[in-house]
């Protein structure tokens, strides 16, 4: 059954059938071949109860926050403010790229949109100041991926929903690895630019006065982040309520920057519905497949498979990680994550691993998928923001950051507390 599902998944995806639809078809297949009684009679109820969900509505809310912020000019202001703070480091503006992407994606939750925005703001600078395009563009593509790790994260909400884990705990677990990875990205940039100064560009020095003034542009986005994340942990609001508060604040920010108009709001809403529907078709498909697999007795099938393979827990984990890296070349973040959760997470749980911890590990692995060719959406988005230039630049420039992500994966395996300390103690 597991083999059938895995092979079917790859085969049907290769036919370019939409990911969500593939998951439905697999569920139908599991039902007719492996289940002793007809499961799909209850399909309507399963679809209804999976979409009638007050937790999942946080997804469109967070998408909407991102859509509003994207159209409000916050990214430009954040970029120039962070530029004043970090561009004195070896590597110059590259640090501003990473910092802006980190901060911006912390509030927007969409990696691709973040990369696109930062790329539009940053690339003109690179050409003007004569930066080497490779590391410069690679840092934007990689920095953009952090959005799904640092809370609030749409991917973590979906993971929590499908695995029935606590979303606030997942959010807490993402903070330390997320910040650590941003710092490691910057550290790698410093090391590379000290050893090979050609990779970077001119450093920029700003006076303390400029830095203090710059703080003003950072206030709105920090305020948004703290209100959303803070209100969840103060026990004051559910993730859904926090997201609603976030939408209100982002509207106020847009208003303050005089970017709010009827057209802007409508196009933000349309964008939100489109992204939400795209996510939800995949999520409902995974939920239905999950239901079919569980009802058909995936638990026993898994036990048999794992015993048959005779691999240790660590070896199994390594196989899973390798699979994600390979699949990540071809499949994009959320689809990769959601499509594999029904198969992989039961294995992980059976092996005695913590599912919150694995959620964070999985996020880092799928982040890698965003910047590994041939299918790496962030690579395309960043490259298309440049007027001219070869895709190879972005791919090469991303390599150091991909290595950092791998390092982070191993750090998480060696020290699970990097993710688990906060959720276990707060």
């Amino acid at each position, binding site marked *: 059954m597991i083999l059938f599902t895995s092979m079917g998944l790859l085969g049907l995806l290769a036919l370019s059938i939409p990911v969500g639809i593939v998951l439905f078809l697999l569920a139908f297949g599991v039902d007719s071949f492996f289940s002793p009684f007809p499961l799909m009679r209850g399909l309507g109820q399963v679809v209804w109860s999976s979409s009638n969900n007050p937790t999942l509505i946080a997804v469109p809310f967070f998408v909407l926050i991102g859509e509003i912020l994207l159209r409000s000019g916050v990214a430009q202001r954040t970029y120039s403010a962070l530029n004043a703070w970090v561009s004195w480091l070896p590597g110059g503006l590259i640090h501003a790229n990473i910092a802006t992407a980190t901060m911006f994606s912390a509030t927007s939750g969409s990696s691709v949109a973040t990369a696109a925005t930062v790329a539009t703001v940053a690339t003109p600078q690179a050409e003007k100041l004569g930066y080497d395009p490779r590391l410069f563009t690679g840092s934007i593509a990689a920095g953009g991926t952090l959005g799904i790790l640092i809370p609030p994260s749409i991917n973590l909400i979906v993971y929590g929903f499908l695995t029935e884990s606590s979303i606030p705990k997942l959010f807490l677990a993402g903070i330390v690895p997320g910040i650590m990875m941003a710092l490691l990205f910057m550290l790698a940039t410093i090391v590379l630019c000290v050893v090979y100064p050609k990779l970077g560009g001119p450093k920029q020095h700003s006076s303390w006065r400029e830095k203090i003034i710059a703080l003003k542009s950072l206030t709105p986005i920090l305020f948004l982040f703290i209100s959303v994340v803070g209100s969840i942990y103060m026990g004051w609001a559910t993730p859904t309520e926090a997201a609603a508060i976030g939408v209100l604040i982002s509207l106020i920010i847009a208003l303050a920057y005089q970017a709010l108009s009827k057209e802007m709001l409508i196009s933000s809403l349309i964008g939100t519905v489109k992204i939400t*529907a795209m996510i939800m078709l995949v999520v409902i498909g995974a939920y239905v497949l999950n239901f079919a697999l569980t009802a058909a007795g995936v638990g026993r099938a898994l036990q048999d498979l794992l015993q048959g393979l005779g691999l240790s827990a660590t070896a199994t984990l390594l196989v899973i990680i390798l699979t994600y890296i390979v699949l990540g070349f071809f499949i994009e973040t959320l689809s990769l994550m959601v499509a594999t959760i029904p198969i992989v997470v039961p294995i992980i749980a059976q092996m005695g691993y913590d599912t919150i911890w694995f959620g964070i590990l999985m996020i880092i692995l799928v982040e890698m998928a965003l910047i590994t060719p041939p*299918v790496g959406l962030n690579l395309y988005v960043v490259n298309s923001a440049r007027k001219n230039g070869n895709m190879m630049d972005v791919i090469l420039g991303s390599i150091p950051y991909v290595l950092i992500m791998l390092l982070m994966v191993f750090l998480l395996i060696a020290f699970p507390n990097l993710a688990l300390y906060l959720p276990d103690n707060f």
Partner: protein
Amino acid sequence: MTRIISILKRINNGVAVTAGLALLACITIILVDIVLREFGVAFSGSEEISGYVMAAVTSWGVCFALTAKAHVRIDLLRQKGGDKMRSLYDLIALASLSYVAIYVAYRAWPVLTKTLKSGALSNTALEVPLYIPQSIWFAGWIWFALSSSVLLILSVLLVLQGRHQIVDETIGTGDEQ
């Protein structure tokens, strides 16, 4: 034929705007709920309403995502093919989507009829007659089944006429901005 396609697109655009406004309304209700709670007034209906809104936004939203070509497809092999191969991939993808949409709509019907027969109210203070949110949700799936089938028939006709360019524009891959 292209006229029917553009009508479909226009309708679904309207669907998207309506769904977006429903989300905004829902946000307002949640915010009011939070403020009321601070003043010690328990309304607590916002959670239930958000669930219904989410169900409706999802079932109607997928229709818009269909005509906006936003459903994620892995088009690595598809890209390697010529015009005809690409259209073939697109038809397979759309036919599977259509099949799933029709099947889900078919299986969703009993959910609604059962509620209608029993006149079930939601098990909360609001006591919403459940058939209301469920009909909106069910209608979305019907529209998804209907619009994808119409799109499928039109695409088959277009392919038979050899108008691969329009097929690619209508049901190919690549997001429309």
